[in-house]
């Protein structure tokens, strides 16, 4: 199974039916799968923080939301994650393409690449870092944790994840 299809199957298995997204090159196949699914409302957002707001509203309306983004966008949504999702107890599944780690060719990705895990830890946001064959299971487990704890949870997909056949 392709790495993108594994994540998509995890989303479907978790019952995700509302997705907000800001693209990353590594998410392109997943974004196509999400866009073509008639049972998922997909909203491309202009900025990741906007996506947090869209997903919060969708959850308040009874949907199961996920935010698809690059880790650079994590920095754009910290206040909304804290003073909206964490304050009110709103679950959110974040599917994050983790750039700026081992194998990254673009130097501009490195600062946020290094800060991503420390930021998640500081915010006490649980995260998974699935390896080969674990994408689907990680997505489902992450949503279940978000729902149970009524807070954001993240799946970090690093450069190695996408190289897996």
């Amino acid at each position, binding site marked *: 199974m392709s790495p993108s299809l594994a994540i998509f199957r995890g989303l479907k298995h978790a019952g995700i039916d*509302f997705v*907000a997204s800001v693209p990353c090159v590594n998410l392109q196949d997943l974004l196509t799968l999400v866009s073509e699914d008639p049972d998922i*409302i997909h*909203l*491309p*957002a*202009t*900025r990741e*923080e*906007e*996506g*947090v*707001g*869209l*997903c*919060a*509203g*969708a*959850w*308040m*309306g*009874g*949907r199961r*939301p996920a935010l698809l983004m690059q880790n650079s966008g994590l920095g754009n949504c910290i*206040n*909304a994650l*804290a*003073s*909206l999702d964490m*304050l*009110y*107890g*709103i679950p959110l599944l974040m599917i994050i393409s983790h750039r700026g780690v081992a194998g990254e060719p673009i130097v501009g990705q490195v600062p946020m690449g290094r800060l991503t895990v420390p930021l998640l830890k500081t915010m006490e946001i649980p995260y998974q870092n699935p390896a080969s064959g674990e994408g689907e299971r990680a997505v489902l487990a992450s949503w279940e944790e978000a729902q149970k704890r009524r807070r954001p949870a993240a799946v970090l997909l690093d450069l190695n994840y996408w190289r897996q056949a």
Partner: protein
Amino acid sequence: MKRIEAIALAARAAEEQNALLISNIGYPSRELYSVCDRPENFYMLGSMGMASSIGLGLALARPERRVIVLDGDGSVLMNLGTLATIALYGPKNYLLVILDNCSYGSTGSQPTCTCYCTDLAAVARAAGVGMVKEANDPQSLAPALKGQGVVVTKVEAGNAPVPIIDLEPEEMIKRFIQSALPAEPS
């Protein structure tokens, strides 16, 4: 028109339309709470700029339910991309009301760009929002509150002397979600 008068009109419209009402952070939420508290009101206590996005996600999730958002000029300027997203994806059950007092009213009335040069109705139109109205008095605001898209209302700067909201966030969202639930099939 004072902002609290515009908020009272919006609250009455929301009640009449059985609409869910998302209210912006700071004094606007406090003013709404003081003039008309309903379980269908969601009072933002943080995440400045997110009101329009929360409302849009809600309106898309619940297309059969009317959703009204009360936002401010400072908050819309903080999340200006929302107008482009609303232009493309805003459903007909969604209305964004921008109460423009040309200032950051909850932090000491520092001027925003709308005080000098920025026309948010023109920005909304340029972003592609099809239905944009300007309603600067109660007579024009009342009918505009029945519409969709974006309404920009100029209001006086300054806050009404209202207390802080004595609801816990958990209680606020719990009762909101309950009141937003679809009606049981009979």
